[in-house]
């Protein structure tokens, strides 16, 4: 019952202001001129001191992007985005070549992360987590502030294990061959409108390489923060797990409360070689806009994992509570024989949020398996859509998929939708899909309230049970965070 107790506590402690990460950090920033053009791309590339091939790669993507049109198939509605009215690069001002150590980082920024509960000092651990007996659990953090990475922790310790964990802009200089070999091989520059835009203007993100046979000694995490006005954040994450390695990676996001919509178009690429495993967890809590739908982040993200090797495994876990609009489909390409993909998702929408999220499991190899567990909760006047594809190609003999999508509706003005695509081209592939939509039953609420819980507490209790399957997949540190988030997101949706 501890988890339930926790939720009830949280519901009780909720501030009037529900989005507690909505503050702004006042730091001097250096921005690229507004708008998007070849010059801006050259500017970004020059800022990062990138090699020529990288600039060319960006320019090719930009040329391609100019010929593309924004996708319109998702169940989301938003006014057309003026791509010339955005800043594509914003970075906190710094002297010289950037901070050598944490002491050189702007104290305002450090304070920001402190407020957000993100440990940038290595002796700290994630707020809200009790220290287990003995050694504290360590988490390495890469903190991305607008367009640049401001700090990366535990670099030395990771280096000793052979793990490369650094901002992708640094990796371009230190490990150019690795970046060149893998960048764009999972999500090509031509993939889709937002991925192509990202390829042209991406500014920072994390690069992770786990060498053969290494089990990454600690959790890796990146914490994304949008701070500047009118900026878009375009980060690019690339994680490569070489043969027999293992890594667990966490990602968190927040942004200040603003009346205008801000664009976040990220690309995440995962590559798992033979016998490797990548576990990728996201707690997405961008500013969702106010109750009337004013402001908030447009979260248009392309995430894809490639199980390139035999027996490889990629697992996506996401808790989506923020963003005005979410358009996101973390996918697995199950190329290697016996590889497996997992997708666990909790998507919560309230107010006027619109969520269109799901996954793609593309079975190419033999005996590949995938599992999809998606829990959508819509409240207020939000629209919440699960959209997923499971496909088995001709050679995917023995492919196996199980999909379960449940939606919960709270209130009579919201919508919950399920749009799965199931494509089978192999008789020995076995796919099962089930989906249900329902509301919290009066009986359950009555039962809980009759035992002395308030209505809000009772709802929290039921919701907790509803999402439990997914929460259990999160690393412990995030599970606690996520549970709090869920109760906060649903605040005000009952009664």
């Amino acid at each position, binding site marked *: 019952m501890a988890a339930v107790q926790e939720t009830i506590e949280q519901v009780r402690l909720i501030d009037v202001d529900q989005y507690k990460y909505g503050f702004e950090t006042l730091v001097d920033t250096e921005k690229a001129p507004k708008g998007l053009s070849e010059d801006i791309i050259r500017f970004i590339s020059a800022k990062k001191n990138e090699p020529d091939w990288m600039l060319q790669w960006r320019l090719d993507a930009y040329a391609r992007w100019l010929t593309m*049109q924004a996708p319109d198939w998702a169940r989301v509605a938003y006014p057309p985005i003026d791509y010339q009215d955005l800043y594509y690069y914003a970075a906190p001002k710094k002297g010289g070549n950037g901070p050598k150590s944490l002491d050189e980082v702007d104290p305002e920024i450090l304070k920001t992360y402190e407020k957000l509960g993100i440990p940038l000092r290595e002796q700290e651990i994630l707020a809200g987590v009790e220290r287990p007996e003995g050694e504290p659990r360590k988490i390495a953090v890469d903190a991305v502030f607008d367009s640049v990475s401001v700090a990366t922790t535990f670099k030395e310790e990771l280096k000793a294990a052979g793990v490369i964990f650094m901002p992708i802009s640094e990796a371009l200089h230190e490990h150019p061959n690795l970046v060149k070999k893998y960048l764009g091989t999972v999500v090509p520059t031509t993939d889709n409108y937002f991925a192509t835009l990202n390829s042209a203007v991406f500014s920072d993100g994390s690069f992770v390489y786990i060498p053969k046979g290494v089990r990454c000694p600690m959790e890796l995490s990146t914490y994304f923060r949008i701070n500047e006005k009118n900026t878009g954040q375009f980060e690019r994450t690339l994680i490569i797990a070489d043969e027999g390695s293992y890594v667990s990676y966490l990602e968190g996001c927040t942004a200040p409360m603003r009346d205008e919509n801000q664009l976040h178009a990220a690309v995440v690429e995962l590559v798992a070689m033979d016998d490797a495993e990548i576990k990728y967890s996201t707690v997405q809590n961008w500013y969702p806009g106010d109750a009337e739908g004013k402001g908030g982040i447009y979260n248009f993200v392309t995430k894809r994992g490639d199980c390139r090797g035999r027996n490889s495994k990629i697992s996506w876990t996401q808790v989506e509570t923020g963003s005005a609009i979410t358009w996101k489909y973390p996918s697995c390409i199950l190329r290697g024989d016996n590889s497996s993909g997992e997708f666990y998702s909790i998507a919560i929408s309230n107010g006027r949020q619109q969520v269109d999220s799901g996954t793609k499991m593309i079975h190419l190899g033999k005996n590949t398996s995938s599992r999809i567990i998606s829990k959508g909760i819509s409240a207020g006047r939000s629209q919440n859509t699960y959209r997923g594809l499971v496909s088995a190609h001709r050679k995917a003999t023995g492919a196996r998929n199980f999909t379960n999508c449940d939606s919960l509706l*709270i209130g009579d003005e919201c919508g919950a939708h399920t749009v799965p695509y199931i494509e089978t081209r*192999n008789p020995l592939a076995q796919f099962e899909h*089930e989906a249900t*939509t*329902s509301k919290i039953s009066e009986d359950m609420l009555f039962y809980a309230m009759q035992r002395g819980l308030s209505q809000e507490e009772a709802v929290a209790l039921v919701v907790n049970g509803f999402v439990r399957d997914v929460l259990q997949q999160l690393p412990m540190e995030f599970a606690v965070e996520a549970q709090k988030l869920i109760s906060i997101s649903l605040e005000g949706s009952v009664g």
Partner: protein
Amino acid sequence: MAAAVHLMKTPAELALAETFAAAADRLPGTPDIAAGRAAAFAQFSARGLPHRRVEAWRYTDLRTLMRDAAPLAAPPDAAAKARAGGKGALFAAVAARRLYVVNGAFVPGLSDLSPEPGLAILSMAAALAQGDPLVAGHLGQVVPSDDAVLALNTALMGDGVVIHVAKGTALARPIHIVHVADLAAPAALFVRSLLVAEEEASVSLIETHEGPADIAYQVNGALEIVAGDGARVSRVKVTAEGSAAQHLASLSARVGAEAAFSEAGFVLGGALVRNQLAIRLDGADTVAHVCGASLLSGRQHADTTLVMEHAAPRCESREAFRAVLDGAARDVFQGRIAVRQAAQKTDARMMSRALLLSDTAEANAKPELEIFADDVQCGHGCTAGALDANQKFYLMARGIPATEAEALLIEAFVGEVVDQIEDETVRDALMGAIRAFLLARR
């Protein structure tokens, strides 16, 4: 990516435009109907044949599948009419009132038009020409749609059957519309029918579609059903077109309160078959059962696209679909349960299952839930796979040969949906057709 790119007209689209230009003046209908035809063709023409970028046609790319458009079929001659008399044999055991539509034209001479109180049967061509108020009041308005194939039907519809069942009338016999294509060369048939069952009326409709093998004829059929409050309406449709035929059919049904509606569709023949069903439950406390099965082999392509719209409170719907796929057949099932905000207390369940019997068969399913009301119980399930090896082993261990064991399991698999049909003689006839498919496999 968005499909705003201007597409070149395909040969089929150009041929359709020519056909329409040439035929517009002689197609039946009052000036109002003619204006409706022109508007419908303009709507079709603006977007052309649906292709894979059109979400509802994602898996049936008509732009590529329909290479050309055949000319409109000529009215049937006496010999064709005579041959048609023996068709519809699948349901010979069902004591039904048989109506014949040959090459797209209603043939009163062949049809059983013996009077029955409360029942009126009319040719669609005549109804259009006379400006029949029933047709004028319902045509194209039962479930409004912007589908291109339905628009094409509205533009080019030639004939069909109009059935009116008066308030409180329970028909003594089912009505069996026997659609026959009797052609020696490719031709196009645009058939439009309307069934209006007034309050408390009870009617059971059977439709069969047959035609010659190896002739690439094209059928574009549309049926609109209006079921009033308390009505009981059921339809069973068997698509057994010739091996080279294209069959595109649209059903639009609007069902009133406290009614019972059932629809069962079986696809046994045709090179390309698409059955699109738009059913709207407009009144409270109605029960709807929709089921179907496709038995495909060779290079057949069958598509069932269903939209079950719950627009009123406390309705219940059940949808069950099966596909058995051999050879390089492709099956598509798209089923959407849409629950409007007013439709509280909806109870809807949809299940679709595909059985792949060969290495080259393909099954695509898209079961959707679109829900805007909070107090609902909705679910869907979907499976795809081969026959269960354990079940087959169990039967073989008891001395049943492998092919026999498979046939038994397939029969049971499809039987689950056939069982939902109320009329026993109809059920038996369908099981007979399924056994014939299984025999042909051996």
